């Protein structure tokens, strides 16, 4: 796990002049992904912000081969690419899906579940900015409780869908969560995934200044607070064994976590959240940690 920033290639795989918003977490994540795999992979991108971030034809801001595909189809497309390469005897090419939370937790979950059940030898990364940003900040099943979106003006009334645990229930060899605010943790997980045969799922928390309503220089700060308050948890599940990683290792004890208000108050999307709603959210977070604790102990 000990990766130093100095070990990473200097080469950039997400080029300057791309079309991301300032402070965009998706482009930060992609940049790390490129460095983690040193550009030796195929990227499959369903409809999402990254469809735009690449920039318009005839140019592209991404320096690895990209196959854009329909919103629901990324996991199946990656399966086909893998099969094609195997049929052609090219076994050493990594195939990576880079999909949003909508393309993963909602419309793409069927294809994702299918690919996981078949244990396809691909890496699937969901960058989770907790709403449909491409189309203008509509709620997804990964939007947290209480958050404003353009389809939940009074705050979302349901809790965030726990996709990593859904993927773990498929008993795939590797499931991990990560955050763009903890790049070395993310890169270590990508590199580990690249060495494992079979289906790998990484869920990357990606605070989005445009959609969450915070200043564009606060992306990393918001990302860190998500983890430090326990709202987002860094872990991996390797062959069924659950393990907290990074700073989350020290946060099992609730008293070590920052109050979640510290996280919420930075974001305009929670500006109208009530005290009762915050209490509910806290209870939800505590329950999640109980679940993780149980997973850790059952080993």
């Amino acid at each position, binding site marked *: 796990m000990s990766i130093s920033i100095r070990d990473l290639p200097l080469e950039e795989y997400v080029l300057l002049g791309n079309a991301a918003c300032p402070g965009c977490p998706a482009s930060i994540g992609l940049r790390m992904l490129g460095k983690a795999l040193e550009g030796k992979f195929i990227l499959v991108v369903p409809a999402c912000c990254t469809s735009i971030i690449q920039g318009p*034809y005839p140019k592209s801001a991404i320096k690895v081969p990209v196959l854009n595909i329909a919103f629901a189809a990324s996991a199946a497309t990656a399966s086909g690419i893998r099969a*094609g390469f195997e049929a052609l005897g090219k076994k050493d090419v990594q195939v990576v899906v880079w999909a949003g939370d909508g393309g993963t937790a909602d419309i793409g979950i069927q*294809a994702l579940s299918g690919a996981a059940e078949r244990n396809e030898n691909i890496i699937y990364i969901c960058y989770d900015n907790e709403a449909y940003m491409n189309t203008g900040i509509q709620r997804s099943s990964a939007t947290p409780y209480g958050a404003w979106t353009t389809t939940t003006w009074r705050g979302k009334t349901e809790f965030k869908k726990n996709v990593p645990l859904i993927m773990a229930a498929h008993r795939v060899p590797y499931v991990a969560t990560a955050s763009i605010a903890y790049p070395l943790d993310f890169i270590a997980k990508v590199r580990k995934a690249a060495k494992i045969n079979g289906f790998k799922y990484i869920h990357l928390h990606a605070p989005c200044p445009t959609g969450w309503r915070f200043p564009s220089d606060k992306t990393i700060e918001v990302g860190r607070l998500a983890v430090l308050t326990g709202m987002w948890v860094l872990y991996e599940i390797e062959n069924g064994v659950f393990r907290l990683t990074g700073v989350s290792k020290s946060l099992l004890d609730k008293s070590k976590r920052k109050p979640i208000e510290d996280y919420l108050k930075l974001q305009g999307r929670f500006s109208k959240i009530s005290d009762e709603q915050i209490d509910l959210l806290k209870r939800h977070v505590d329950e999640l940690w109980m679940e993780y604790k149980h997973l850790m102990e059952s080993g």
Partner: protein
Amino acid sequence: MGVSKVLTGNYAVANAVKLAKVQVVAAYPITPQTTIVEKIAQFVENGELNAKYIRVESEHSAMAACIGASATGARAFTATSSHGLMYMSEVVWWAGLGKFPMVMAVVTRALAPPWSIWSEHNDVLAHRDCGWIIFFAEDNQEVLDLTIQSFRISEDEKVLQPVMVTLDAFILSHTATPVSIPNQSDVDGYLPPPGSRRLPFILDPANPLTHGNLAYPRNFMEFRYEIERSMGNARRIIVEAGREYGKITGRYYDSLIEPYRCSDADAVLICMGSSAGDAKDAVDILRDEGYNIGAVKLRTIRPFPYEELRDICRNKRIIGVVDRDYSFGFGGIMHGEIKSALSDLHIPVQGFIAGLGGRDIRVEDFIQMGRKLYHIIESGVGEFPPIWINLRREVFR
């Protein structure tokens, strides 16, 4: 010259896929296509076909996986029908518009409600406009032959578009007839080696390219025109592929249409798919009765056989078009297309709607249609609105 076997249309497809040495198959079952993907699974498990078989969870994923496989340069195949094709539709368009070579067999079947598993052509015709070359097969021999040819056509560097081979539910898919199967070595010589074609776009980390990113209006139309150019080239490549195929099998397919007793005919009935055989039988009977009639089978509907049809129809007194499909509030889909292709020839083009949801189109029905064409000529009334054949009108009283 190969061997002759008694095969259903579905097994003819499976055998063609095996002979073409397809490298990636991704498929999902649906009646009446199911036995295609079952048979291929057996070929793969027996080691008779060395392919990756992806047992996807839906048709949408089947087509998406074929797109992925095609983007690596591998030879890909899928098969579906009716609801499966509609469920897949978004990515069927993606394959055509993205210029991904592959072959798909579609067993034509009516859409529900009400549920039906029998033949109708609306499923295929809903995908007329998405950049696929579309063949209609008349019999199981044609099913096998066109499927093999389709790989060559699809992968031709002047085409690089996906190809659909369609066969009618049950009438072909589940009816066993003798089919002559070419030798493997002949097919090997006829098709490019699988995975050998050079795509302008191929996924390769050593040469990164982006496929499908945003195109502003100033760049977009050229993508569309390029597909149209490929379709234009396909007219020639299809004929070439059909001729070359004749050299290895003795069965020549050298036109996008197949005319039957048309040269001296006054009237011509146009149809597609499995009913073409019955249309020809009807022509023979009508000829014996003194009617100067012929029939034309459309082998492709995309590219549309524009010149071929105009050449055949030019001096006729009337044309009849038999649609096993319908566009509500309009009429038969092929009727509309053919009428527009012949518009400046000033020939009446009468539409017939027949066989929806698998209702039989019998030889007698074609005979009635032929006689009707002559009534129209003799009465000089021009043409009637589309005539629904064997509609049980009493239901509406």
